[in-house]
């Protein structure tokens, strides 16, 4: 039973570029959330997707956008990258929007130069 998988695991971008991160949820899960974890900090909620719609959003600018596909996989897009966007981006899935703890992937480490 595959858990939450994310790609790529590491990537380096320069300021102003755009990045797309991908996530496949755990089998049987239909809800995906994205988190940003800066060095030495706890994960911060970016947004949650359910039924291909953004259901909740944290305090992140519009440069951060996402998408959920019919197979429940999800993408996180960040435009006009800033140095401060360097972080570990974690995808988490849950069996339903209203139940259960989150299952996290290993994350995508983004470095912005």
């Amino acid at each position, binding site marked *: 039973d595959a858990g939450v998988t994310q790609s790529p695991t590491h990537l380096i971008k320069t300021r102003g570029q755009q990045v797309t991160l991908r996530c496949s949820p755990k089998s049987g899960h239909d809800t995906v*959330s994205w988190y940003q974890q800066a060095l030495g900090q*706890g994960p911060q*909620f970016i947004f*949650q997707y359910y039924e291909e719609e953004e259901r909740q959003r944290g305090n992140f600018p519009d440069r951060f956008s996402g998408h959920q596909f019919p197979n429940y996989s999800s993408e996180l897009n960040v435009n006009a990258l800033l140095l401060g966007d360097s972080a570990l981006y974690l995808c988490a899935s849950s069996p339903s929007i209203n139940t259960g703890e*989150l299952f996290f992937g290993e994350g995508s480490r983004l470095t912005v130069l």
Partner: protein
Amino acid sequence: DQQVKQNSPSLSVQEGRISILNCDYTNSMFDYFLWYKKYPAEGPTFLISISSIKDKNEDGRFTVFLNKSAKHLSLHIVPSQPGDSAVYFCAASSSSGNTGKLIFGQGTTLQVKP
């Protein structure tokens, strides 16, 4: 504004002894609390949770205590084992059952010495 705080960045205990990790929160709307454990190069993994209608929840060596009046929760690990060495995050949610939006603390690094 840090709504969930873990004031101890690190904790070191001897194998076999008790580990106590603490967490404070400020938002009285939080009604569900969780602890996650994170090893290097891995995503956080769920450990134990507690609803605000309870004050204690046990799962094997792990017990979480909730003091709503003090807005404080703690995780007790007894006995501690070297494999418990990891970063522990406290998290809170204000919409019962919907844990998609969790507010995390900064984490406490636990080292269990053999």
